[in-house]
């Protein structure tokens, strides 16, 4: 029997289903519909709306505790619910696992599309902007008790007025952000 000359992965690369499902990004509409379906599943299964950034505050607390600090006296973690979550640990925290899943899923998606690349940092400016932007987003998300997922997306999905208030604030914030971006990065 003669062996095929083309390698397996070279054939996969040209397969129309591979190109359709894994290589090309989904359209915004497809992604939006999937997100909506899965947030309904999340709400039904966990009895809590989908959120992302609240978990990051816990991650920060666990890291701080791991370094020997204590957040027992912090107002943010003062509730008994927060204290028991912290005591139970990250492995027993369902929302942490969901965030791990988002990270692992994003990595898997980019690997399957052969799109993985370690990007170089172009300028010190990028680092400064990323740090300032990250701090502002994290701080803002905790002040608002949610980010664009927990406060905006899940808020609106729960027919809560607060989600729309968040949307208005985010819209004007995004305008300011875009102006700064064009000013400092063009």
């Amino acid at each position, binding site marked *: 029997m003669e062996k095929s000359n083309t390698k397996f992965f070279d054939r996969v690369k040209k397969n129309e289903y591979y190109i359709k499902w894994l290589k090309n990004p989904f359209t915004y509409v497809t992604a939006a519909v999937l997100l909506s379906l899965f947030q309904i599943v999340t709400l039904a299964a966990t009895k809590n709306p989908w959120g992302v950034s609240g978990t990051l505050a816990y991650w920060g607390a666990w890291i701080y505790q791991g370094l020997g600090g204590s957040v027992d006296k912090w107002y943010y973690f003062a509730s008994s619910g927060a204290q028991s979550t912290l005591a139970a640990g990250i492995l027993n925290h369902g929302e942490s696992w969901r965030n791990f899943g988002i990270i692992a899923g994003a990595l898997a998606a*980019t690997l399957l599309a*052969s799109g993985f*690349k370690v*990007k170089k940092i*172009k300028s010190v400016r990028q680092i400064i902007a990323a740090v300032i932007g990250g701090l502002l987003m994290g701080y803002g998300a905790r002040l608002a008790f949610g980010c664009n997922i927990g406060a905006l997306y899940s808020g609106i999905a729960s027919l809560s007025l607060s989600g729309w208030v968040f949307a208005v604030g985010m819209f004007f914030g995004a305008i300011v952000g875009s102006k700064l971006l064009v000013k400092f*990065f063009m």
Partner: protein
Amino acid sequence: MKEVVLDCLGEACPVPLVKAQNKLNEMEVGDVLIVQLDHSCAMKNVPEWARKDGHNVEVEEVDDGEWEVIIEKTK
């Protein structure tokens, strides 16, 4: 007719798009702009804008996670 290469590697959205728009504005009809990028959402929105504007566009995957968007200015 000239060819201009715009290095947007390591730049996140929407920087490649705005840079490409500004660059193309300074160019003459018939010139070719090659935008190098490695941000997957820019690989979507740069060709989308250029096609909507009526230019000839081709996208080439030059490496894993690295693309060149070739835009020929038509008007």
